């Protein structure tokens, strides 16, 4: 319900709104309009042609497969990390918790070169893997590792507060009925953390799809094999093919929005189900 101008008790509405709208227009809205204009100007045929080009389609697949694998790995390891940090006392617990902030705070380029070096065939971990005939850097596995690195915190930080809030008495009530830890996890804890896991998966997936800096050093960037979609856009830009870059960017954005919407709906669905059960 809109308030009449005379009825705004707290001052600063016009000032705040002007600054916010000006900033938002200059920084966000106008640049996005450029993308829209550019996309419309290029015409339907070239647009379709660009986004269905076999190399571009291959890059979608690399990005999607990589992001999906990374998000899945992080759901499992993230749950373990959140679990350990919530329920157990052990040496270095605080350090472990602080380390979880690293992937966000560390510049992606630094992460990128460090991971590439670490997993190259001469690197500390790459050497080790080579003994088993595994090549990590400059392969698809490298992409997944970089994606896992940058998205470690998402699942953990979503699940941690939920686990911490889990009602202790609720657990003990189930235990007195003779339930085993296994059963408690499946029937009591898992439904509680499912929405958080989905949210964490969604955030990790979305971030992985868009990630650029930490991946390009370790990916090898071979067309059809290890070229991620953001890199395809970068190549188009370097070739001054702005139309091509625009078209692929539109596809990525559209995908992101649809994906975020789906994740939100899923999260709400399981949240309702959880609340309904109680």
């Amino acid at each position: 319900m809109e308030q009449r101008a005379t009825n705004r008790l707290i001052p600063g509405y016009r000032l705040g709104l002007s600054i916010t709208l000006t900033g938002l227009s200059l920084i966000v809205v106008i640049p996005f309009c450029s993308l829209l204009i550019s996309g419309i100007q290029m015409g339907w045929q070239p647009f379709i042609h660009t986004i269905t080009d076999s190399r571009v389609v291959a890059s979608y697949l690399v990005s999607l497969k990589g992001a999906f694998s990374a998000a899945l790995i992080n759901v499992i390891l993230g749950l373990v990390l959140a679990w350990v940090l919530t329920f157990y006392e052990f040496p270095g617990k605080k350090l472990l918790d602080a380390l979880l902030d690293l992937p966000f705070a560390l510049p992606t380029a630094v992460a990128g070169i460090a991971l590439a070096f670490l997993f190259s065939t001469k690197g500390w971990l790459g050497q080790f893997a080579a003994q088993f005939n595994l090549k990590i850097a400059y392969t698809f596995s490298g992409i997944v590792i970089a994606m896992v690195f940058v998205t470690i915190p998402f699942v953990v930080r979503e699940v941690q507060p939920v686990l911490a809030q889990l009602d202790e008495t609720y657990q003990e009530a189930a235990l007195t009925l003779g339930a085993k830890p296994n059963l408690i996890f499946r029937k009591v804890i898992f439904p509680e953390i499912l929405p958080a896991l989905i949210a964490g998966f969604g955030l990790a997936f979305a971030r992985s799809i868009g990630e650029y800096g930490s991946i390009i050093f370790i990916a090898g960037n071979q067309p059809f094999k290890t070229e991620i979609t953001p890199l395809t856009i970068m190549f188009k830009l370097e070739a001054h093919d702005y139309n091509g870059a625009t078209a692929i960017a539109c596809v990525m954005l559209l995908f992101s929005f649809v994906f975020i919407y789906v994740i939100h709906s899923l999260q709400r669905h399981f949240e309702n189900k959880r609340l309904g059960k109680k």
Partner: protein
Amino acid sequence: MYIDIRHISKAFNGQSALNDINFGVQEGKLTALLGPSGCGKTTLLRVLAGLETAGSGQVAIAGRIVDDIKPQERGIGFVFQNYALFRYLNVYDNVAFGLKTKHWPAAKIKARVQELLDLTGLSDLAQRYPDQLSGGQKQRVAFVRAIAPNPKVLFLDEPFAALDSQIRQELRIWLKNLIHQVGITSIFVTHDHEEAIETADEIVVMNQGQIQQVGTPLEIYYQPQNEFVANFIGHSSLLKNPDLNGYDLPKTACQVQIRPEHVHIHKLSKKVTSFGQSATVKAVQFKGLTTNVALDIQGQKLLAYWDAGATPLGIGEQVQITIERLVVFQNNQSQILKAQNTAQRQIQVL
């Protein structure tokens, strides 16, 4: 009228929240807006304060129509339900805040704040921060802060709701006395009828966005104008078409309100002849000073009191009752009736 409210209506998303509200508040009086939750009383207060806009109607404060005047320029002191003390200012600075914004000279601010803190017994707490105060102290500070800049009117939203019952009792009397001492015209919102009756000079009873009755606590209590007011204020029984000895009740459909204190119970004994009305004791609840008794009369429930010191009443016991006074509601009109025959009211002892 110092505060004049005319034809105020307001709807939220098509649903009427306030429906043609009219009343006035005399200068220096303390008025309560009383009603169940969702009746529109808080919305009305917020409209008066300018926090919400009315769909139609007019509000005048101190002879000035304020509909197009900003809330902060209406001359209002407002106390929120949670008191909203400034957490990062101490008691002194909280009270002085409204004086500083009006650029009072420092010496005058000091004198005014000191005077008010002395008046309300808060002087010792001047350097404390809100976190270090009890609920009752917070309420006093919020009140003092609101009246410090001498507003024309004072609005309080559920001022006692956040307090526990003993402090609530104490603060009601404190607030009533102080408001009369300061002489500020005030309106407060409450859902508690006892609070309204004890504290207010005048009560506006509301339900479903409409005013049910406006009157002094005595009028509201003894002369309810409709069934809602009768039911909502104090304890009473509503009987449908009863047949009561000594009363000439309408033959057509009507409702009768009887307050428990107007019902006299007489034990049946050899010494007492039959008179009044016969009833059966259904339930008895010891309350300390009195005992609450639920009676069955002609198949309907009637509440009464019984002297705690007297011979106890047993469940199922047959008794005689006389009714001193009742209110009849018929066709949206109310009528007070007293027992016609004094004999009805007296215990006949053979």
